[in-house]
């Protein structure tokens, strides 16, 4: 009989927050910050991942890298010298080239530079096939040809050329204790960013001086859509004798690595969001406890005109729920805005997480209602007689 309609219940519960607007807004702040953090972090990590994926897609996800693995005794097993040629014979492979790192070889402007001032530049021996396989483009000069690959010549990465102060081919640089002629300078490469700070040497020439220099890795380019198929046969092809001692990776594993980093960051941020939500809940509890104290007269009056204890309890829990809802909606909107602004700033397509925003709003209502339990129980237990005497 005396049950309130849903509309009456909601209107009654909305009365409190509406009559004390600034306090209500302040008590929503904690929850809003929590939800904004949640929505923003999830959106930003999703935006990052989408961009990384898009970058890899643009570069070509059809790249595989073969590297030496470990034998049963955990000793490194070098790749056979025949591996690059064998790999090139796999049908869908459009290019493959070996890269050998000359560890400890310094790269200097000339022989007078102290060896401690290498600037972090590295020297690598490459096969001429590398340029075609990995889409390397020259800024100036020329790539290795059949003749220059057998001579002391070098092609410099973009940053390495800057560092050495070599802007045009035809100059000499001091690498691995001998003079090399610069024949070309590379453009920055998206697929092989590590070549940026390297001096590339012709493999044939290097092997005359270091006949035992092992293959560090083989860059493999395949036809689109054949990555999985080629991947399955690469180890057998590269080292038929010990296929298990061959490591094969794809750049998309970079994305996985990135995701692992992101997920650490994400858990940290979600933890922060949880703390903010907790603080928000405490804020709501405080506001509601004070509201109950202040409104003893109103509560007593409601009891006098026939409100049941349960209806008083419901009213105050809903009031707290409204505070949560307000905070949640504000936080979700703010979080989504942050993601959009971040995406615009990073010049990429933002990936706002609407599901998280929705769940966040629901979560805030829940937090509000739970925060309202204690004040609501206190309100319902107030003696009407004492409440009417206050004021």
């Amino acid at each position, binding site marked *: 009989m005396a049950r*309130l309609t849903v509309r009456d219940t909601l209107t009654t519960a909305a009365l409190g927050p509406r009559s004390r607007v600034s306090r209500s807004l302040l008590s929503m702040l904690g929850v809003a910050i929590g939800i904004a953090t949640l929505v923003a972090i999830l959106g930003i990590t999703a935006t990052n991942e989408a961009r990384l994926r898009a970058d890899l897609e643009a570069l070509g996800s059809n790249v595989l890298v073969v590297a030496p693995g470990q034998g049963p005794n955990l000793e490194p097993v070098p790749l056979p010298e025949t591996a690059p040629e064998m790999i090139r014979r796999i049908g869908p492979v459009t290019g493959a080239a070996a890269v050998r790192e000359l560890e400890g070889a310094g790269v200097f402007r000339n022989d007078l530079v102290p060896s401690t001032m290498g600037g972090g530049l590295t020297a690598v021996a490459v096969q001429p096939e590398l340029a075609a396989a990995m889409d390397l483009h020259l800024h100036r000069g020329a790539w290795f040809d059949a003749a220059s690959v057998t001579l002391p010549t070098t092609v410099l990465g973009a940053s390495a050329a800057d560092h050495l102060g070599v802007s045009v081919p035809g100059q000499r640089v001091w690498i691995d204790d001998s003079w090399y002629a610069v024949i070309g300078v590379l453009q920055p490469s998206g697929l092989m960013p590590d070549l940026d700070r390297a001096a590339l040497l012709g493999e044939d020439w290097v092997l005359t001086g270091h006949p035992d220099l092992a293959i560090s890795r083989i860059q493999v380019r395949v036809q689109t859509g054949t990555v999985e198929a080629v991947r399955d046969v690469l180890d057998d092809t590269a080292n038929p004798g010990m296929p298990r001692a061959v490591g094969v990776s794809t750049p998309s594993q970079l994305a996985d690595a990135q995701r692992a980093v992101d997920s650490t960051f994400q858990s940290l941020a979600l933890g922060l969001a949880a703390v903010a939500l907790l603080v928000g809940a405490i804020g709501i509890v405080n506001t509601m406890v004070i509201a109950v104290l202040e409104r003893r*007269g109103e509560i*007593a*009056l409601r009891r*006098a*005109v026939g409100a049941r*204890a349960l*209806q008083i309890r419901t009213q105050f829990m809903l009031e707290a729920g409204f505070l949560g809802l307000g905070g949640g909606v504000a936080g979700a909107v703010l979080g989504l805005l942050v993601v959009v602004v971040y995406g615009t700033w990073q010049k990429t397509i933002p990936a706002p997480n609407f599901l998280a925003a929705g769940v966040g709003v629901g979560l805030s209502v829940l937090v509000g209602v739970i925060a309202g339990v204690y004040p609501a129980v206190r309100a319902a237990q107030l*003696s009407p007689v004492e409440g*009417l005497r206050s004021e």
Partner: protein
Amino acid sequence: MTHTAVAPAVELRGVSKTYATGSGDLTVLRDVDLAIAPGEHAAIVGPSGSGKSTMLSILGTLDAPSAGEVLVGGRPTAAMSDGERSDVRSRSLGFVFQQFHLLSHADAVANVELGMLYTGLGRAERRRRAVDALTRVGLGERLDHRPTQLSGGEQQRVAIARAIAHEPAVVLADEPTGALDQATGTAIIDLLDGLADVAVVVITHDLVIADRFARQVRIRDGRIEADLTAGEATAAGSEV
């Protein structure tokens, strides 16, 4: 007068009220019998501390007696659940307080409507009755005024409208003129005493006000000292 076939609107039977305090029990009401007939207007008069406010709270089922029975419309309330007692208040009782107890952020109509919120009446019906009641108390022109925009007397009129809008059997008024000047207070008493078809119980410490009512119940130290009709009260004089 109380021994009619019709059940009293409210009735106390052997009601006592004792509060536990730090220095032992404090008895505020002792074995009080009181019946208010339907439509009867009565004043409960006594000095402060005589227990009259407690009596009103118990009559209004806002407080429970330590002993004895409270009947509203002939129905005992002791065994009722909180919900049932709340329903009794929402339907059969109306309250008027010294401090008005109006919601400051709601206008006059909304304040009167609040008195019917828990009765089960629909929104439109509540509004209609609220406007009616405000018109009856002479505030038909000030429906959308907030309490801060009304004088003390007008605020008390809103409170009276709130107490009568749902057509209760009894209106219980606790020092309704306590916060008002004498002229305004007189007007409020006129208004309360002029209510027809509803029992009115006014609590006051003021014999002049009590004299306005057909029945005077004088209490002192928690006991009913005298229960007089208007004529008897005048004869008994104003010694309280």
